[in-house]
């Protein structure tokens, strides 16, 4: 493999990993703070992709579609938290798994009713549709670089939100000791709604920006939820920074696995998980 092919794979691995991080960060945040195992988190990714498809067709512009889609995702997050998830905080994980699995079925059925079972494409916005030439016959699409850039910005934003803002302090305080946080005047119910909506929106946003490269198809959420759980487990359940590192590791091992060991490509990520868990059974990092 020459340098430029290697560079392309490296960028692809990074882009895939960062996108995974967006999905997994919401999953691990919701687990770390509210203790919810949310199997339906992958469905939020799918909802995002289908929203991007419909809204881009409606507005003729992916950028507007994403802005609208993010707004709708926040509202959907608040609604779902209020209708379903808040009843599960005090429950056993088994109930959470049952209900959120049920939600996957509901989301898939709704998707089938509303959008049908066809595969759809979403156009890359014109100003991001170019490629950067690397050699005479190799080039790299600007849109993929843009995905990585946006994901990095969001990772930074998430760090800032959790580590540096008062809201972040309240979120961490609420995760550590719910009753004490309330006794200091923090509205925990509202905080949980906000965190849930944030987690859902991160996944939906990942679906939206991934739509032009991955296309939009039935059961796309099912694929992403499994790999997201792998990321969360490797990173350390509840740790956002662990999820970032784990997602990039997975992105790289998957991408390079497909290139270097194509016949074992399906195994590389799970092999990585097994090795990390043998070395550190709790994952790479502890809870944020």
């Amino acid at each position, binding site marked *: 493999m020459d340098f430029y092919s290697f560079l392309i794979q490296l960028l692809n691995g990074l882009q895939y990993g960062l996108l995974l991080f967006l999905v997994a960060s919401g999953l691990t945040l919701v687990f770390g703070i509210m203790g919810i195992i949310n199997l339906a988190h992958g469905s939020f990714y799918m909802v995002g992709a289908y929203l991007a498809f419909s809204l881009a067709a409606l507005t003729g512009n992916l950028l507007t579609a994403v802005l609208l889609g993010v707004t709708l995702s926040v509202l959907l997050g608040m609604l779902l938290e209020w209708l379903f998830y808040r009843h599960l905080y005090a429950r056993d994980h088994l109930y959470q798994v049952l209900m959120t699995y049920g939600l996957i079925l509901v989301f898939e059925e709704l998707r089938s009713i509303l959008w049908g079972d066809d595969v759809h494409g979403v156009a890359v916005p014109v100003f991001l549709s170019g490629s950067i030439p690397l050699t005479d016959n190799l080039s790299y699409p600007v849109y993929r670089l843009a995905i990585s850039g946006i994901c990095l910005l969001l990772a930074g934003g998430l760090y800032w939100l959790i580590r540096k803002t008062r809201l972040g*302090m309240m979120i961490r*305080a609420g*995760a*550590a000791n719910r*009753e004490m946080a*309330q*006794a*200091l*005047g923090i*509205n925990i119910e509202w905080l949980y709604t906000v965190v849930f909506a944030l987690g859902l929106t991160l996944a939906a946003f990942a679906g939206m920006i991934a739509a032009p490269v991955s296309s939009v198809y039935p059961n796309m959420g099912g694929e992403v939820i499994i790999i997201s759980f792998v990321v969360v487990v490797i990173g350390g359940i509840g740790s956002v920074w662990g999820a970032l590192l784990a997602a990039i590791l997975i992105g790289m091992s998957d991408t390079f696995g497909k290139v270097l060991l194509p016949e074992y490509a399906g195994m590389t990520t799970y092999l990585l998980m097994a090795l990390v868990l043998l070395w550190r059974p709790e994952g790479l990092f502890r809870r944020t």
Partner: protein
Amino acid sequence: MAEPLLQATGLHTYYGASHILHGVDFRIGSGEAIGLMGRNGMGKTTLIRSLLGHVQPRRGAVRWRGADITQAAAHRIARLGVAYVPEGRGIFPNLTVKENLIMAARAGLDGRCEWTLERILQTFPRLAERLSHGGGQLSGGEQQMLTIGRALMTNPELLILDEATEGLAPLIARDIWQIIRSIRGCGIATVIVDKNYGALLELVDRCVVMVKGRVVFDDDAARLSDEIVQKYLGV
């Protein structure tokens, strides 16, 4: 008599099927200091949790300046100006000392902001030296200072201290009592639960003694006779 700051009447509180409070009456006026006394398991902490909205009494009413807050959410009651220093401290170990303090900051209800980070750090110089440490890395005494400092950051009208000196070395406990005394000096109403009755009685205006979920004594601290102490507190 002026309207009390906080008044509970006829509280019956249950944990599941167990009946803990049996018709408790409790009141505290602005700036007043009350010693809440009783052996372990007599309902002191349950009374506090009922006042704070952490557990809903099944019968009875809690009023704040005359307004019914019996069903109010805990965070709403806190925002009225009630701060709590719980038994076992309740610091956030995953936040730094500074974060523990500033996450709680709130101006007082009438817009005054008397307790600021600077003033807390003057009062607790040991915290100033450890601002960037994690809350979980502090010693027991420092954690207690942090919890008290954090409660003051909300600029409360009423401060509830549940076993603030429990498990502390005597010298550190003496520091904590000194701090409580200075807090008393600025007119914040306080409810203090503590096993050190000597220090407690020097500080409070009135004593409330609980036995098995009932109030058996509620009067001036000076009237708390040795007989009652022997009988109900077993010292």
